[in-house]
């Protein structure tokens, strides 16, 4: 395991995970994961299916029982309930996107709001008009049930829904899965746009598609722990590690 001390870290990381262990029943899924995300950073968590990337995100979100340490903005969140962690400012977009299929696009978005009164007073970085300005397509489908949107539209909707809750960190599980190359590019551009507004991103990916272009740093995961940490350039130059842990 690599040393965690990145010398360029000035402020406290927004997310700091130390020696995280998690179990599904008796099977040991995470074997001491260490990673961190600095404020305003896009960090990519790469790895093949089943190595524990999603479990790591779920553990941060409080949806998996875990042991170790998880600090969000300096605060210990391990053991807290998922909704409490969300209210501290963690956003999570799961792999299956979890659109509420029977609710309209607008209703889906409004359910992302955690405190409707504060939101109505104008609190938070994101409002429904911002979302519609960024994605006119969603505005056109304002009154359409979320279940009938295309895969790309659903991905935008689920991202926007999480943003409506004004998170400081957003964990996104495979946002490009199953999308056409052009839409994948759009997702990448959008993530960079989000980052410009001061939101840190933990991007979970299987492929290098947008990971190399938009991430500051990458972690590569294998068998429940981090096997590589570095910049996109480091990973590009390290064919051996890519072959062993990434490419099929």
């Amino acid at each position, binding site marked *: 395991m690599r040393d965690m001390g990145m010398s360029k870290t000035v402020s406290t990381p927004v997310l700091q995970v130390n020696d995280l262990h998690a179990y599904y029943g008796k099977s040991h899924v995470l074997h001491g994961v260490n990673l961190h995300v600095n404020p305003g950073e896009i960090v990519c968590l790469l790895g093949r299916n089943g190595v524990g990337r999603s479990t790591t995100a779920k553990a941060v979100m409080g949806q998996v029982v875990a042991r170790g340490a998880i600090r969000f903005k300096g605060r210990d969140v391990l053991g807290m309930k*998922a*909704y409490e962690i969300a*209210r501290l400012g963690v*956003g999570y977009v*799961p792999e299956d996107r979890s659109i509420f299929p029977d*609710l309209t696009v607008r209703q889906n978005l*409004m*359910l992302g709001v*955690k405190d*409707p009164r504060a939101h109505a007073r104008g609190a938070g970085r994101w409002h429904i008009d911002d979302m519609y300005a960024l994605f006119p397509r969603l505005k056109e489908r304002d009154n359409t049930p979320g279940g009938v949107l295309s895969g790309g539209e659903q991905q935008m909707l689920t991202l926007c829904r999480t943003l409506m809750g004004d998170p400081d960190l957003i964990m996104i599980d495979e946002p490009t899965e199953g999308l056409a190359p052009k839409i994948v590019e759009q997702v990448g551009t959008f993530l960079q746009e989000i980052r410009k507004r001061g939101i840190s991103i933990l991007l979970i990916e299987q492929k290098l598609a947008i990971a190399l272009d938009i991430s500051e740093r990458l972690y590569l995961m294998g068998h429940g722990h981090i096997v590589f940490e570095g910049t996109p350039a480091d990973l590009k130059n390290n064919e051996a590690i890519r072959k062993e842990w990434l490419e099929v």
Partner: protein
Amino acid sequence: MEFVVISLLNGITYGLLLFMLSSGLTLIFSMMGILNFAHASFYMLGAYFAYQISTWVGFWPGLLVAPLMVGVVGALIERYGLRRAHRFGHVAELLFTFGLAFLVEEIVHLIWGNVAVDYRIPAELDGTLFTLFDTDFPIYKGFMMLISVGMLVALYALLTRTRIGLIIQAALTKPDMVEALGHNVPRIFMLVFGGGTALAGLAGVIGGNAFITEPGMAAAVGSIVFVVVVVGGLGSLGGAFVASLLIGCIQTFSVGLTISVTDVFALIGIVLPEGSQVARLTITQLAPVLPYMLMVAILIFRPRGLMGARES
């Protein structure tokens, strides 16, 4: 004609009452994935609470207070019982509600005794609303319909027009996602359980005096409510509504039909051999069995129910 109209009115009254019970059961099932075996016990509690209140201050305060009390009892049971059992899986939850049904029945035995209590329709609602052909339609049935329809409209408005309703709808299918968006899902579960049991309690308040308030009432109604949710489709409110009315009408129509099984088969051109015991049974005699026959038929030909989405 007279028979059809009166049976239809009775069937709808009874069906709406069934829906009051099955809607709560359906909501609880969709959200938590468990069948609450004790659901009809809350119906019974509603009737007994209303009876007790009526002996002190009359019927009307009980109409409001008894369902609220039942709802609070339900919410507390969810919070301090079911939520703990939940950690040990669905089987533990199922057994918990199963045990709860027995517990409530025994408590009712202890407090109110083994025989039916004298829970009566209030004097101002005792009488004839209108006379159709030669049959009187009682005021109280009209009142039951009014309460049921009011409840139906209120439930619909709550689920589709309010923020909490949207959160409930979303949590019905994707509780983890709803919680990850920052909503207190455990509290929503408690509210839904409390609300569902309050509806059962309300059904008990208006059904207990229309029918009978005795310790066996939960078991009697409970099995019919399960038929309703299975026929309608587990987890489907719309299905529960259709199935409630269907079962309600089947029960009232079949009670009035004096034709025999032989006659029914004759209608579709099948002649049954004479002398068989079964063939001589009338539809009236078969009435109590018909809902269960429907349930079995549904389970064979359309296991997910009329409008159900779930596999389980």
